[in-house]
């Protein structure tokens, strides 16, 4: 190793900045800049309970059309993946990823004794608990606890948001939340905070020291993230939506030297009790456009094989439509897996059986914790059973 990667990067970006390099060559230049192998995971939370049946649509299923006379997506409009299955018409880029072999679909993911409260069910998904237990740490947070013992920078996981989700809070380590690296927190008082900090010496008051430790980690991480986000900013065009901006930030960080392994971002609200068609159409358009830009950007920079993205929602919705042009809270749901290195592609397990329902709701076939176990072990190379508190059979998609 002759040149440190960081210097190499800076050299690279200097060269890119030069007017001498024709624009079309810039993308090529990047190809060799970042050594592949730093695998990262991007979690996209669809908040509010996305209607899975109108996302991955059983276009030949009579029960589906019978139960959804108004909301059922017309077979001709769905983006057909197979004779039996189509995607929601707005999910154009996901159809392209499917054709490309970069999309996996897991059907009927859920958990036993499903809860229909948004908050509670999200709690269950974010903590990785059974529906009868209450855990105060998140599953990614516990990954940080295991992985990051004694880490000086808590940037192993980042959430693109103003506030941190429970999923990313561990017992001893917590991730950082930030919407914009330039503004990790209100800067109005930053100098004061730094002065306060340099004035403090740890003593025998444990909680005081704990607060100071959190404060100091926050300020140094803010700096670190900001520097890294500028090291190799994405120059691609992203849609000017919240998700678009967020994924662009994530891409820029993926291209940098940062030690982040997990990124977390949310889109919503998918709670479509009324007027579902418009709301889902709008959200899926935002999703599809942003994912299109993001995956193209990753491919152009030769990083698509190092990224595994997945989506989840706290629950799916009932099979039957309701009387207000919407659907009510349901149970099991599908998940999208996106990446250049998927070991299983396409529709990985059977579509939900609409003949075999539990009082009008889908039965789960895959415990979502088995999905977590799979990515923890196979993608992030960590001890999944220690993190999840139980051993789950691994799936084979990565």
């Amino acid at each position, binding site marked *: 190793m002759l040149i440190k990667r960081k210097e190499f990067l800076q050299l690279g970006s200097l060269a890119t900045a030069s007017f001498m390099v024709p624009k079309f060559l810039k993308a090529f230049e990047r190809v060799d800049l970042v050594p592949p192998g730093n695998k990262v995971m991007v979690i996209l939370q669809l*908040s509010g309970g996305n209607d899975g049946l109108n996302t991955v649509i059983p276009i030949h299923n009579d029960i589906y059309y019978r139960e959804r006379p108004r909301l059922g997506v017309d077979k001709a409009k769905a983006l057909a993946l197979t004779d039996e299955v189509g995607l929601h018409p707005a999910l154009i880029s996901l159809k392209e990823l499917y054709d490309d072999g970069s999309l996996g679909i897991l059907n009927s993911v859920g958990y036993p004794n499903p809860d229909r409260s948004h*908050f509670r069910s999200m*709690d269950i998904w974010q903590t990785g608990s059974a529906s009868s237990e209450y855990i105060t740490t998140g599953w990614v947070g516990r990954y940080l606890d295991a992985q990051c013992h004694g880490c000086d920078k808590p940037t192993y996981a980042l959430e693109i948001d103003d*506030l941190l989700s429970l999923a990313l809070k561990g017992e001893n380590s917590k991730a950082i939340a930030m919407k914009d690296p330039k503004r990790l*927190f209100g800067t109005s008082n930053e100098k*004061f905070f730094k002065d306060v900090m340099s004035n*403090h010496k740890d003593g025998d*008051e444990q909680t*005081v020291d704990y607060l100071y430790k*959190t404060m100091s980690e926050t300020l140094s991480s803010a700096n670190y993230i900001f520097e890294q986000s500028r090291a190799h900013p994405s120059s691609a065009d992203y849609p000017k939506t919240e998700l678009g901006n967020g994924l662009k930030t994530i891409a820029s960080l993926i291209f940098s030297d940062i030690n982040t392994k997990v990124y977390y971002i949310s889109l919503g609200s998918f709670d479509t009790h009324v007027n579902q068609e418009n709301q889902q159409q709008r959200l899926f358009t935002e999703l599809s456009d942003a994912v299109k830009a993001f995956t193209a950007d990753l491919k152009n920079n030769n990083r698509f094989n190092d990224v595994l993205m997945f989506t989840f929602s706290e629950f799916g919705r009932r099979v039957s439509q309701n009387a207000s042009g919407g659907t009510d809270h349901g149970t099991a749901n599908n998940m999208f897996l996106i990446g250049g290195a998927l070991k299983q592609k396409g529709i990985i397990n059977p579509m939900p059986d609409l003949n075999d329902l539990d009082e009008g709701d889908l039965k789960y076939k895959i415990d979502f914790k088995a999905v977590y176990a799979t990515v923890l072990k196979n993608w992030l190379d960590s001890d999944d059973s220690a993190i999840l508190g139980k051993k789950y059979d691994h799936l084979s998609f990565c």
Partner: protein
Amino acid sequence: MALSSQLKNQHLMWRAGFGPNVGQLSVLDGASPDSLYKTLQKASARRPQYIQAADSSLQGLMLGIQDVGRLQKQEMSPEQRKEIRQKSREGIKSLNLYWLQEMVNTDAQLREKMAFFWHGHFACRNLNVFYQQQLLDVIRQNALGNFGNLLHEVSKTGAMLNFLNNNQNKKDHPNENFAREVMELFTMGRANYSEHDVKEAARAFTGWGANARGEFVLRAFQHDDAGKTVLGKTGNFDGDEVLDILLDQKQTAKFISQKIYRFFVNDNVDHQKVEWLADRFYKSSYDIGKLMEDIFTSDWFYDEKNIGSRIKSPIELLVGMQRMLPMKLQNEEALLLLERVLGQVLFYPPNVAGWPGGKNWIDSSTLMMRMRIPQLINDTDDFNIKPKSDDDQMMGRNEDEVKIKGGGLRMANAARVINAQVDWSEYLDYYNKVAREQLVNDMAGVLLQTKKTVGADVIGKYADTTSKETFIKTATIQIMSTPEYQLC
């Protein structure tokens, strides 16, 4: 080293209440903690007034529909349901703000603090404002009374029975949720009973439900009155008898005493002290007032390690600030936004286990946010933080949409500017008498409970020295913007 009575009094005010208020500044170093506690007890002995937050038209609407429904066997229309849900959410917001006001202003600090503890203990998410109002009243009336009565009454509220699915607990199809949580979270704690005990207890609660008015109803035809065995006792128990069996278990006194110790004294439990408390609590047949007196009049409560060691919950932080700096908020919804951002919205606990508290309050975002709040109160700084969505509250509408429609939650933008008018007069009157070079130390001595605090020079450096008055104000704001102020 002997601790000053001022520090002890402040400690008592923070733990047995929501912190000292500005009116107490001149007496904090006078009275003894014991006499201060007597004052708190006396003020808290008055019967609290029922907080009626729900719109009266909503009451008419709900009860009217129920009565009509019963006569004509009619269901509510979807429009009526929607209107009721929306008004009910508005009602819960008012209930939240009313109660916050009470916490800030009342002399019955001990009672409201205790009620706040029970609010987290008997944690309940229920979108029906009448149910919530009623549960809050049960908790406030019994806050310092008898735990057995409190348990029986809470268990019979519409709020709790519905939240824990006991309306679905029927003779032929028992639903164990209610029985399980009563044992696991309200009385004995995990690992002190068997799965079989839960199953049997659940049968005793079959048929327990509530009507739309929130009144307890026993649906005799759904009740299983055959024999049951719970914790070694056998009989044709009903729900009340099972609750009494749980109260007979000394483990219940231990579990509650330990939780109270962690909340009011120290997160790190001293098992000997808890054992002593539990013993006396059990012998007194669960007299909560006596238990609290045992704690607050003991010497060890004032041990150095118990002072300034507790991370204020968001509610304690927000209420405590307002007690020292009385303020008028042009937009009260700003308080609700702050509750959401900091992670504690009254009436919306994360789950039936309540708020976990302690270090769980703190992450990079919430800590920085907490330290910015005093600044936000002081000027009309733009509050540029978007809270997480809570679809149980929002019903799928995001805030911007709501704003356009002009109804429901308007917090997103309208409340970003906090626009507080602080009434500084009493505070300034008091500190104007203090010599300037003493000011920062004196103020920090009142505002902070930790041993070590930020140096006067750092505070002074960032304070506005134009006049004594501006200095007092800005230095106060800076002291409140430190990590130490997060503790009590």
